[in-house]
């Protein structure tokens, strides 16, 4: 006869880069229930965004996340540009794609490394992070910062990328691709990786939409849904096709992210080769009027949505941020029950949780 035991997983746990607590109810080694507990990194950023000048918010929203910071700024700026009817110069749209895909590339490599770390594959973890460093070096060269690059501005981008740096990006991503060719097959086909991920934490296609999951988690369940398919920015010129897997388990989520690293490299090459010349910033006057806009973009972790409402002053009436992890956390209550306690770290990591994004 077994009784239920409640194990608090987190807020400090070796696989969590950020604090999150999951109260796991167990019957022997089997998980029967899960309750997420949040509130360790809430910073009140939505409230702060109402108090700031709308131009200062570009820097504020970048600080929601330390990994996909630039993409937060892009989404916020898109909403403001929609309200103020600002047309972007074509070059600015392409530069946003280039920096956005560089962020996705380093985020996915960070995650692939963490996945390897979660089941004790230390050498694979370090190799992914070594390659990731080269992308961070590019970000530093082109913007002066490694993570929070502050390159986005309302009306375009704040900086241009020189021809010399564009050439260097192409050289570096060629090198990264060669190195990834050596280690991504390990994620895809290694027996130890497969034994920890295949058939673990499954979300079936039929349940995926209903659960509200987003990003690679949704695409790993066989749903071809990616905000880049809407063609925002320069994506409409890049012949974007989402990466989709069918099995809906942790393995499929790893495969989606692994394939998306190659996809980002491909998008970077296309964007650089098609990059038009010209201005990078459209000047505008005044404040956002009494209007509301909803914008959405694709972060490495999934769909990001901003609702922004102006009131004619320099302060905004409301800035609402819906981040991908906020949508993926509830699905853990379907992924975890029925699995072994030892599977919990891999399953939780498979949604690539970003708690700073979730709590804002």
């Amino acid at each position, binding site marked *: 006869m077994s009784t239920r035991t409640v194990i608090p997983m987190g807020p400090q746990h070796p696989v969590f880069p950020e604090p999150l607590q999951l109260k796991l109810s167990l019957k022997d080694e089997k998980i029967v229930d899960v*309750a997420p507990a*949040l*509130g360790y990194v*809430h910073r*009140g950023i*939505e*409230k702060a965004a109402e108090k700031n000048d709308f131009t200062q918010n570009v820097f504020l929203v970048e600080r929601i996340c330390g990994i996909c910071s630039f993409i937060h700024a892009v989404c916020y700026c898109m909403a403001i540009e*929609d*309200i103020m*009817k600002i047309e972007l110069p074509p070059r600015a749209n392409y530069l946003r794609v280039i920096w956005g895909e560089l962020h996705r590339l380093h985020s996915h490599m960070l995650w692939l490394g963490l996945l390897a770390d979660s089941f004790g594959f230390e050498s694979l973890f370090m190799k992914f992070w070594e390659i990731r460093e080269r992308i961070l070096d590019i970000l530093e060269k082109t913007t002066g910062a490694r993570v929070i690059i502050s390159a986005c501005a309302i009306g375009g981008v704040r900086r241009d990328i020189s021809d010399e740096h564009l050439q260097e990006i192409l050289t570096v991503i060629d090198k990264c691709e060669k190195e990834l060719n050596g280690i991504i097959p390990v994620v895809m086909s290694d027996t130890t990786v497969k034994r920890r991920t295949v058939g673990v934490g499954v979300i079936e296609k039929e349940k995926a*939409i*209903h*659960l*509200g*999951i987003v990003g690679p988690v949704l695409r790993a369940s066989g749903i071809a*849904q990616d*905000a880049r*398919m*809407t063609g925002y920015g320069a994506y409409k010129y890049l012949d974007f096709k989402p990466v989709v897997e069918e099995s809906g388990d942790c393995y499929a989520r790893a495969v989606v992210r692994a394939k998306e690293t190659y996809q980002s490299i491909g998008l970077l090459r296309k964007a650089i080769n098609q990059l038009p010349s010209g201005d990078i910033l459209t000047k505008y006057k005044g404040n956002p*009027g*009494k*209007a*509301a*806009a*909803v*914008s*959405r973009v694709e972060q490495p972790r999934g*769909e990001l*949505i901003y*609702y922004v*409402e*102006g009131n004619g002053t320099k302060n905004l*009436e*409301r800035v*609402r941020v*819906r981040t991908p992890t*906020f*949508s993926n*956390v*509830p*699905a853990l*209550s*379907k992924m975890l029950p029925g699995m072994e306690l030892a599977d919990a770290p891999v399953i939780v990591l498979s949604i690539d949780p970003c708690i700073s994004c979730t*709590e804002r």
Partner: protein
Amino acid sequence: MTQTDTQPQEKQFPVLEGAENITIDNLTARVKKLDEEGYRLLTATCLDRGEKYEIYYHFDKDLTMLHLRLLVNKEEEVPSLSLIYLCAFLIENEMKELFGVKFSGLFVNYGGRLFLGEDSDITPMLKCVDC
């Protein structure tokens, strides 16, 4: 996706373009229908409109968004969508904590403490009329 038109009774606030007005009485039935039609619940946005809350429920199907707009008096209870869409429980608990929206039938109830600590201000997202 902007709209500067205003409705006569709420002149001071904009309305999101294409938003479908909904009431407390038909909210659940409308959302059940959307669920059956394969819509995904993206999120909800709560706005403090003085005596009322304005809540937008955002849905998506095949990359097309649909917005439901609900105006409710602050003392009224809003039916929870968490029994239709499980993912609504975080969204509604957040609105309850930060705005003070009252929900009936909330599937998982954090009791008004999802993000904030015990010593934090209550409903910090409400507009401060004295500020």
